[in-house]
């Protein structure tokens, strides 16, 4: 229960951050990605602000085995850079560039009642489901 409440809180604050920063607006994100046009550097400031806080949080987290609510710390253990990581990243980037949506802003815009965001999110979940099917078949083979 505590775990889910903390999750709800984090999701809500994350959503507020995306709204305040303007990143829930795909046109603003595309303004950052359009480096050859009139460039809007705002997204870099969003990342900068988030990472500033994040670096401090991870410095604290690294020294702990349990979270402040007493749960196990689950930090990623992978360090290798492989084809899946890079190809997946490239594929995600192409989709991001087409619509200006990454997962978080897509979900926030859906919550704002945007029909187009609902279409994007539906296709995104379908894409994730396709991934699951491919992975399961691979595991069987």
């Amino acid at each position, binding site marked *: 229960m505590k775990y889910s409440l903390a*999750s709800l809180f984090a999701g809500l604050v994350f959503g507020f*951050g995306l709204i305040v920063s303007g990143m829930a607006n795909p046109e603003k994100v595309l303004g950052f990605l359009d480096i050859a046009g009139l460039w809007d550097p705002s997204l870099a400031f969003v990342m900068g*602000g988030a990472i500033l806080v994040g670096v401090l949080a991870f410095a604290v987290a690294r020294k702990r085995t349990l979270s402040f609510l007493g749960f196990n710390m689950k930090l990623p253990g992978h360090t290798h850079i492989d084809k899946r990581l890079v190809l997946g990243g490239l594929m995600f980037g192409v989709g991001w560039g087409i619509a200006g949506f990454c997962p978080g802003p897509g*979900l*926030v815009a859906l919550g704002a009642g945007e029909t187009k965001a609902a279409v994007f999110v539906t*296709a995104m979940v379908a894409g994730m489901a396709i991934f699951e099917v491919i992975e399961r078949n691979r595991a069987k083979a």
Partner: protein
Amino acid sequence: MIEIAWSNFTPWSALVGGILIGLAAASFLLLNGRIAGISGILGGLLSPARGDIAWRVAFLAGLIGAPAVWLLATELPAIEIKAGYPALIIAGLFVGIGTRYGSGCTSGHGVCGLSRLSLRSLAATLSFMGAGFFTVYIIRHLLGV
């Protein structure tokens, strides 16, 4: 030469919003011990394990519910979605498959991964940012859409 769109550039709200995103990721990390990676949180629901569902749904409910809570206080800023429906469907499929293959998106790799100085996340972030810049260049400047 890069030309800055000064009339669109919003450094202060971007910074404040970024700090809020950082605080969200920090509270998730320090309270629950997890990385706030949105594609992973959502994607994990598609292969659900016992006891692993409620917190994912709660996080997503917070994210999706944020605009409604925001509306209790003030108006939402504009959301302009210029892509047409076919483009949105293709984009969604690419983002869905790509983020799962690459084990993360802008939040998990971009914010959390870079915050913990992970080279793997740096490689992922450079991949999707590079592909994003390239794609927008093709669409806006070569195809002229």
